[in-house]
């Protein structure tokens, strides 16, 4: 029995020694793991164990903003631990992780250590966080600029997502600035991001711009383009301006070098190139004209590139490129073209010796940009109330009693003319409608055209519909001018509010685009 007892004691002590050894191994392994997590904290979210539901949820099921908030908190803790360990000043001008992160551009002579340090010191302002601003900001943050400010008062909409690459489906409804900050922070937490969630106005422009080194105009209206350019001239900041519509893009580096107003060695400003704003009716937005995502993406990326070129150039840079305009056209060959621009205009209202644009004028509000650029004059072709019908009443006409005549009718009782362009008509249309594109009506030579002839063959009332209820009024007027109303005997009118109203009050299934 004593032998058994002694043997058991021996076994237990051996096991205890093994256990102790395992505990040491575990502690050592945990220590190494902690160290690794400290040096590369961003690796953590990627360490997905497919079997662990928590990891999966963290990576795929948690909204981006919430997720980055959690990691931000974890990072803080890691920093607090780190802080107790190393206090000595750094031997190297960049942080250790920066050598790795920016390594691929650091080894290029165009950037190098000095270029990277200039980027790190730079403060850039991106005005407009849409199709241009998103890719521009992404590349600038990726490249390691020190501070990036974002100006926009808009919120993310679903129709933005095909091109505004910083936003996400989960963040529809969030402000564009906040949404972009979530994405940019997860891209590169080293960059300081400054939100300006408001619309740029003449009285805020100078205070918003003054602490930045370079400005990117990523906006979409002439008023903001003139305001941004004027402010850049007054504060002597170089401006990288781009725009895009449908399949075309344009890019200019303005006020480069940013000499004071009156100094003819400075680069031209937006007003030098475009002294007068375009007539408002010639200005088409992406919402009305359409935009191909990669087209505006290319232009935004080129803005980031030009900004990096300006920021990394050596201070004693001998030659600034002569002013030029880059034209991009996605369906032309070649796609890119560069044309020479003028220098500063001797009589420019902003950057010449005779400038009328002054800080005082800007801040006092005496420069009215909205008035300068004008706005589309309210529709002079507006129809009278009895020439228009609500979407609901029109629905009754299609299936029920005509509210005007009291007769039971159907969709064959009249002609419904849809005046959207063909490509939009093909997307979706009201059953039985015929397409006469607005461009066909407005381009018409003379008085007789196929569509006019077709409509003359019938005496049925005509209803005209478009997307929002503006073009339809113009077309109704035109039809009456052409005498299609048989001197008033035949009813011609439009559907108030167009297809938007039709969707809101009649057919909720009708697609919105």
């Amino acid at each position, binding site marked *: 029995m004593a032998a058994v007892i002694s043997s058991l004691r021996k076994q237990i002590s051996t096991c205890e020694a093994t256990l102790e050894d395992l505990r040491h191994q575990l502690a050592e392994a945990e220590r190494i793991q902690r160290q690794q997590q400290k040096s590369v904290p961003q690796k953590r979210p990627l360490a997905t164990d497919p079997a662990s539901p928590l990891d999966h949820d963290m990576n795929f099921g948690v909204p981006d903003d919430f997720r980055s908030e959690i990691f931000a908190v974890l990072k803080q803790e890691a920093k607090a631990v780190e802080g107790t360990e190393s206090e000595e000043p750094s031997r190297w001008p960049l942080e250790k992780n920066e050598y790795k992160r920016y390594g691929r551009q650091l080894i290029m002579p165009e950037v190098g250590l000095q270029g990277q340090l200039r980027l790190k010191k730079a403060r850039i302002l991106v005005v*407009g966080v*849409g*199709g*241009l*601003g998103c890719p521009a900001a992404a590349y600038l943050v990726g490249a390691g600029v020190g501070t990036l400010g974002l100006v926009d008062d808009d919120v993310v909409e679903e129709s933005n997502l095909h091109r505004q690459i910083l936003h996400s489906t989960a963040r529809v409804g969030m402000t564009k600035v906040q949404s972009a900050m979530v994405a940019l922070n997860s891209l590169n937490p080293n960059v300081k991001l400054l939100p300006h969630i408001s619309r740029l106005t003449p009285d805020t422009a100078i205070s918003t711009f003054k602490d930045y080194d370079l400005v990117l*105009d*990523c*906006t*979409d*209206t*002439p008023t903001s*383009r003139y305001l941004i350019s004027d402010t850049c001239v007054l504060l002597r900041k170089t401006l990288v301006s*781009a*725009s*895009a*519509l*449908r399949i*075309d*893009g*344009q890019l200019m580096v303005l006020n480069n070098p940013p000499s004071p107003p009156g100094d003819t060695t400075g680069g031209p400003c937006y007003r030098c*190139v*475009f*002294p*007068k*704003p*375009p*007539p408002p*009716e*010639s*200005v*088409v*937005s*992406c919402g009305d*004209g359409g*935009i191909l995502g990669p087209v*505006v993406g290319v232009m935004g990326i080129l803005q980031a590139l030009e900004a990096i070129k300006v920021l990394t150039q050596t201070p004693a840079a001998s030659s600034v490129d002569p002013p030029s*305009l880059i*034209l991009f*056209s996605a369906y*032309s060959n070649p796609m890119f*073209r*560069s*044309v*020479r*621009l*003028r220098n500063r*205009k001797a009589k420019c209202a902003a950057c010449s010796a005779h400038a009328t644009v002054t800080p005082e004028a800007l801040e006092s509000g005496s420069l009215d940009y909205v008035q300068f650029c004008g706005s589309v004059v309210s529709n002079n072709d507006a129809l009278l109330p009895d020439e228009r019908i609500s979407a609901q009443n029109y629905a009754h006409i299609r299936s029920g009693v005509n509210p005007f005549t009291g007769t039971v009718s159907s969709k064959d009782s009249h002609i419904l003319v849809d005046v959207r362009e063909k490509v939009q008509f093909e997307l979706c249309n009201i059953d039985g409608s015929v397409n006469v594109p607005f*461009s066909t009506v*407005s*381009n*018409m*030579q003379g008085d007789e055209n196929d569509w006019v002839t077709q409509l003359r063959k019938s005496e049925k009332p005509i209803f005209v519909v478009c997307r929002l209820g503006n073009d339809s009024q113009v077309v109704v007027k035109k039809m009456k001018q052409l005498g299609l109303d048989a001197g008033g005997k035949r009813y011609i009118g439009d559907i108030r509010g167009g297809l938007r109203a039709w969707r809101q009050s009649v057919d909720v299934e009708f697609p919105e685009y």
Partner: protein
Amino acid sequence: MSNDDTIPITIEFSGGLEILFSNQKKYNLPLPFKDESGEPANVAFLVRHLCDNVMEDPRKELFVLDGTVRPGILVLINEADWELEGEDKYEVQKGDHIMFVSTLHGG
């Protein structure tokens, strides 16, 4: 018109202006050598010529305003802003490439 009476030039539209010109971006055009009053053809005459003889769209005001190209259209003579070449007084030369670019505002 015989070749002696015209100057062969290339006209190009960009930024959506082609919509006003039958959706055709590029035109190889014989421009009359002299304008209405017998002066050598300059860009001002070219613009009138385009408006009267090439443009089919009736919305002339989207191309010309107050007798010159409307604000918001950049005229490029051989890839350079026309301001560098004397604006509408520039006398058109054989083989010139003249481009009309409408500014875009979307972003």
